[in-house]
């Protein structure tokens, strides 16, 4: 996508949101939809797409689970 087009699209999207906001008192949907590398139009990658995990979601979830264990000292005995 060329830069000017992207800019145009974004401006349009923002305009749309603003219009919506005025009409519906800001009650936008809060269900996250991740599409084309964006959340609600904001470019962000998902955590498992980082250099560390390279898209391996299962590995990322395992890492997080392991990390969570550190918060529970009962894991190290009663």
């Amino acid at each position, binding site marked *: 996508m060329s830069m000017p087009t992207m800019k145009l699209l*974004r*401006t349009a999207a*923002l305009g749309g949101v603003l219009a919506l906001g005025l009409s519906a008192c800001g009650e936008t949907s809060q269900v996250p939809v991740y599409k084309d590398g964006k959340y609600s139009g904001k470019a962000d990658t998902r955590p498992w797409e980082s250099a560390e995990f390279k898209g391996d979601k299962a590995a990322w979830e395992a890492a997080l689970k392991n990390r969570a*264990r*550190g918060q529970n*000292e009962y894991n*190290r*005995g*009663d």
Partner: protein
Amino acid sequence: MLTKKSSAATGSARRLRGSAARALGQTMDRRAFLKRSGLGVGAGAIATQLPYNLIGAAEAAAPGVSRGEGKADVRRTVCTHCSVGCATDAIVRNGVWVHQEPVFDSPINLGAHCAKGASLREHGHGEHRLKYPMKLVDGKYQKISWEQALNEVGDRLLKIREESGPDAVYWIGSSKHSNEQAYLLRKFVSFWGTNNCDHQARICHSTTVAGVANTWGYGAMTNSYNDMQFSKAALYIGSNAAEAHPVSMLHMLHAKENGCKMIVVDPRFTRTAAKADQYVRIRSGTDIPFIWGMLYHIFKNGWEDQKYIDDRVFGLEKVKEEIMTWTPERVQEVTGIPEEQVFKVAQTLAMNRPSTVVWCMGQTQHTVGNANVRAMCILQLVLGNVGVSGGGTNIFRGHDNVQGATDVGPNPDSLPGYYGLAAGSWKHWCRVWGVDYEWVKSRYASEALMTKSGITVSRWIDGVTENKELIDQPSNLRAVVYWGHAPNSQTRGAEMVEAMKQLDTLVVIDPYPSATASMAAMVRKDGVYLLPACTQFETTGSATASNRSIQWREKVIEPLFESKPDHTIMYAFAKKFGWGDELVKNIKLEKDAQGWDEPNIEDILREINRGTWTIGYSGQSPERLKLHMQNMHTFDVKTLKAAGGPCDGEYFGLPWPCYGNPEMKHPGTPNLYDTSKHVMDGGGNFRANFGVEKDGVSLLAAEGSASKGADLQMGYPEFDHTLLKKLGWWDELTDAEKAEAEGKNWKTDLSGGIIRVAMKNHGCHPFGNARARALVWNFPDPVPLHREPIYSPRPDLVAKYPTHDDKAKFWRLPTLYKSLQEKVKDISRDYPLIMTSGRLVEYEGGGEETRSNPWLAELQQEMFAEVNPKDANDAGFRNGDYIWVESPTKAKLKVRAQVTQRVAPGTVFLPFHFSGWWQGQDMLKYYPEGAAPIVRGEAVNTATTYGYDPVTMMQETKTTLCRVSKA
């Protein structure tokens, strides 16, 4: 991308700032400099070659941290802010400490940190550090070179030594030194020729060390933070662990979750009290009546452990006589605590065994400190709680290595390992050091001064100002070296500046200029030197946590700015003084990046191992300690014992005593005096250190009360060559061991053979098996007695419970008790409120280091005093007002009033970590430029009064008097 006006402006503003900064040459950040110069070496090395203005103010503000470039190294270190010993992983990139990660594997802290521990990485910024040597010239600090500093300081000290003798210089060492540095400093001071050295332990737990060691053998925490998970009840008296040892609360709250009853006794409703099941408010300084009050109920109800007492305790009958005079009415009259509360606490401890006790400065820092702690020991002995997992006396030490510095560091009354100062002790250490005893003796002014305890840090000011005729040494003190110690932790600050004024030379060796620099510059024009030492994150070495576990720190970063490790500075001065070679006879020297000679830390530890048999610092070789640091996950959190792995069967950090040489593989001792375990599994019994009988009564333990599996199942004396021969065990020594052990005892046999045969072959304890002494006959009050503080709020009770008689020569100084108490008996008419002090979680010790850390400083921005609403209303001020707190010394502190019910009417609490204000004035201008701490405030000890423990010279900080008024 959509850029808005505002963000564009921000961007250009940032660029503008950057170029302006470059033009001014002010804000070159060290990381940027490194990147640009393309040098891959340690940042500190480069920084030291830069003029200061290039590594100045903007350093801490350097935007972000370069995360993606360069290889990240993980260095495991241990927090330097308290004695819990929390491990942390430092992530280092291009020599810069970029990141701090929790060490979940640590059995001590399981990744947890308090505010101080979670902000350790700020040490890698160090913006407010003392950056290079400085000298006071005409009232202002000026930069000088290290060469000039070493020469000028060295020459001045040598001149004083020449004119007034070696005892005219006072060396204040540090509990923040590693074991190796603390040990080297004691050796250093000995070669200088004096016992005039001390460190924070004097004003922290000296009364504990003396009182507890004289009761049962070793003056240390008997169990561990971890072991408290086994406790069914815990009594905190004079400890605010939630602020002073926050991570210890992880173990306590875990225990509480599993049914442990937690009790807090304190004049103040602390954050620890907020977590307790029972809180009891006590009048400051009346611990003994409260403890006797509990024991009264224990004896009345037959809750004592009679078998334990019969088998393992000496002299309790005499103590019981005193206890039974403390009727509930009398207890209430003195302590203010009603009978039902005292009963409830006693009952809880008795009915929920094993029960433990915790104490800190609230017990120790009193004119009755040694008696307080002995009363606590007696309580635990009566309940049969000592030498028991879940019981014990859990004495929480203060600084990260105050235990280690007490064990092997600069103490005025002992050589490393509590060997004392007798000629035999000197000969033992001279053999270890590889120097001639006669030479060391020649360094001292006389043999008498060589074997006489030095002045204590709590009294150095009197060593300067006291009448020369009344001092028990040839000269007054003329120079003081503050080597890693704050001045505002000592009492009588108002008199301290007078002492500072009178000195010939004052030297500060510290990562921060400390309050010493500003106090000195306030009253002097010259004769003050500041030398930058680096922190423990910029060097390596071991530290002993409160539970006696020893942990190894890896070096995280190179020393910042021009700072040097303390041991490197010690060697530099030793060279200057002419005995560099003697200091490092067994220690390799290595060149650092700037070509300085650095004594090898591991070699120093090996020398400690070779000499410190008494307390079992002999088995913890650097290799064993490092193995523990790498295999933390294999240790059990409750028992600290490794199950499997390379450290199988050992206890984490080889908690001392770890007897014998490293090859004997003693596992360390998790709980002292525990007869349920074999001595080779960390078991033990009470120490035979006071003879075998007293007044016809045996001091040895009863038949059948020895440690598990011991060949001698009765009480027995300590081991020496004759006992070994009598028992017929002598031939179990090798020929080489025999040659060394002949004529020696277990403490002086450098082969370790006596210990090996006693422990490994026969399961016996080398220090014998004796009774704990409820009656410490060699102390001023063999039975702990209540005595009112010198500045008592109760003149009516002073007559009933007067303090001791004055002492003419006590740690080389005349010391006042009764004469002063009489003089100020009615002073509470003018100063009606109890003034007490304590800690805040955000700061540590004198506080200059932590108040220089913006992440911490932001959380406590002002010195304050807690005052009860009643007293505030009576004095006519409100919450948030500035008030004056004035003590009987006439010193006045200007602080913010925090009006709160945390304190009872009649008590004013002040936190102690502040300095940098002097009786209403900000001392900013007296600090070296750019090196003042961010937060400054009145030091409580500017106003504290006279009063010392009659055994250890511990200062009274917890009970004095004051009055408050609106400022």
